[in-house]
């Protein structure tokens, strides 16, 4: 019995990941229409970013409210390449994207140039967010900015990033964003078979990300990350610099968000500031909170659910759906602070604790003391 439990604890999550893999890679393509599959692909992109948020927020205690920035870095990097591919397909190797002619003077900024190369673009999608997150994270964590400060700071970054995109219309397409792609690394983007391929890539990436965090969570690093979340300063007295530990999680989360964004562009055919701004970032967070931030599969499933919920609610109640969405936020966070993924265990513990349920919801441990605490 005990052995079975241990076995379950180790391999149960892998089984869950396998189920998700089957559902996404085998079942979904078989039963969904091309349009619905493409929609699912979009949610999968959010889920990839969500897995990273689960790592940074759920395990690391860093409420990353600006993941849109990294989602956008990847999304725009990919979109720039696709835009150039589209231009080059019709206008030759020196062609520039159409919008630069429309709103600008028809010249392309130099930093667009390398994105003509697919290899460079793929590298940039990983390296760019990693670099930005390292520099940013280094500065933030070394100065011990955390808790609500960190959350609001990252949110402000998302706002600044989106505003910057809007303000640089001639270089980034501004409010319109980048769209009207035609091909994806040589494949016609409007061919249903190719669309299915891109979907499969996204689903596979999600599964890989889940396996990566599964290993991380069971590793000693995962335990140390939780320790850092619970008592950051205390970790110093185990001989670790908490800034480094947080940095690793933050950078990983950034890279995942970036990859999610990079796949989002070809799947939806567009990336624009409204996909990366503060509101978009909050929706990323919402999925994670809904599914259960500290759980392994919670963030991914939550992100998929929120994506699906947005579509389904807005299709069924196009005029009232924001009410439902608002209520969803409230109900989930209020009643299931550990996410819907934990409803089962929560109900069980409630039942066992009868007859006198606690007067206030105290099912989660008290917030880490330093969320608002001000330390020297």
């Amino acid at each position: 019995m005990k052995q079975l439990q241990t076995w379950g604890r180790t391999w149960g999550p892998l089984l869950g990941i396998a189920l998700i893999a089957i559902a996404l890679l085998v079942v979904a393509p078989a039963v969904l229409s091309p349009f619905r599959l493409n929609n699912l692909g979009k949610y999968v992109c959010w889920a990839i970013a969500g897995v990273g948020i689960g790592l940074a927020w759920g395990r690391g205690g860093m409420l990353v409210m600006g993941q849109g920035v990294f989602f956008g870095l990847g999304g725009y990097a990919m979109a720039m390449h696709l835009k150039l591919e589209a231009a080059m397909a019709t206008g030759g190797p020196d062609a520039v994207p159409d919008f630069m002619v429309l709103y600008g003077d028809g010249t392309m900024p130099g930093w667009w140039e390398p994105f003509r190369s697919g290899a460079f673009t793929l590298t940039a999608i990983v390296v760019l967010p990693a670099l930005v997150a390292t520099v940013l994270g280094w500065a933030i964590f070394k100065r011990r900015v955390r808790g609500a400060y960190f959350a609001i700071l990252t949110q402000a970054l998302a706002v600044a990033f989106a505003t910057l995109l809007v303000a640089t219309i001639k270089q980034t397409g501004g409010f319109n964003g980048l769209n009207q792609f035609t091909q994806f690394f040589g494949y016609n983007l409007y061919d249903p078979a190719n669309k299915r391929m891109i979907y499969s890539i996204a689903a596979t990436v999600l599964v890989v990300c889940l396996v990566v965090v599964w290993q991380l969570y069971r590793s000693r690093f995962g335990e140390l990350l939780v320790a850092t979340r619970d008592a950051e300063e205390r970790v110093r007295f185990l001989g670790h610099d908490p800034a480094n530990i947080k940095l690793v999680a933050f950078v990983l989360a950034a890279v995942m968000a970036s990859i999610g964004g990079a796949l989002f562009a070809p799947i939806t055919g567009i990336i624009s500031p409204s996909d990366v701004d503060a509101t978009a970032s909050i929706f990323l967070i919402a999925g994670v909170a809904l599914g259960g931030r500290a759980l392994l599969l919670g963030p991914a499933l939550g992100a998929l659910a929120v994506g699906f919920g947005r579509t389904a609610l807005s299709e069924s109640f196009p005029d009232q759906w924001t009410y439902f969405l608002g209520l969803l936020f409230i109900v989930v966070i209020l009643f299931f602070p550990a996410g819907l993924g934990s409803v089962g265990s929560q109900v069980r513990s409630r039942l066992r604790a009868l007859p006198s349920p606690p007067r206030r919801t105290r099912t989660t441990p008290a917030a880490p003391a330093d969320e608002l605490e001000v330390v020297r």
Partner: protein
Amino acid sequence: MDAFTTPLLAGTATGALLLIAALGLALTFGQMGVINMAHGEFLMAGAYTTYLTQQVVTDTDLSILLALPVAFLVAGSLGLLLEVAIIQWMYRRPLDTLLVTVGVSLLLQQLAKDLFGAQGDPVHTPGWLDGNVDVLGYHWPYRQMFTIVLAVAALAALGALLKYTSYGRRIRATVQNRDLAETMGVSTRTVDRVTFFVGSGLAGIGGVAVSLISGTNPNLGTTYIISAFLVVVAGGLGQLKGTVIAAFTVGVVTAYFTDWFSSSMAQVLTFALVVVFLQLRPQGLFTVRTRGLA
């Protein structure tokens, strides 16, 4: 000369507006630790209150003055409702309040849209605010001066409340250690409610000032919320002094940036500046230190 005075004076007015919005947050966020993303919608409620007051009392000279206390009550009551219905269950997980209140903010925006329509409603500037005075080349509108006066008055009132009444100590005690405060005879429930009422009420006052700039519309709150939070953070949690300095600095600096570059770039640069600033003073302008690892 006006290249210097215009951003200074206009920025001060913007700063005043930020200050009113941030003062409420300084209470609910700075003192109580609740990250209320619906605070912007309380601002919006204040703006709609002004509109409605003008519908009832058609003498605009009077109605604005009347709108101030009414907006305070309306927004305050909304805040109280929020506290009683939701926030009171969440004091032990401050970061989660952020997400819950995002939901509330969505609800309130949709509600405003359904009640008042998607279009904005007009708010008329009273006669005594009509006009401007020429200050070194800048036609400084009376309305901007009024905003500054309003902010200073709100600040003074709040400052006095915190400093000269036992309420200030109670609120701080409650946020620092709920259980302990309770066992020191502080009714933390009352403190929570009063704080939310006052903090949200301030947003209502801010809403009156905002309505004079842009009338009403259901998305009005979203414009101010993030800047207001940034001001509180840059000012240092729980520090009115810091909030004041941060609000006016952000207002004036943004105005200069706008003048030199553009509005969009000014927003980007101001955000960037706050980020850099937090590098230098990670816990805001005024830091409160304690010992140990807490």
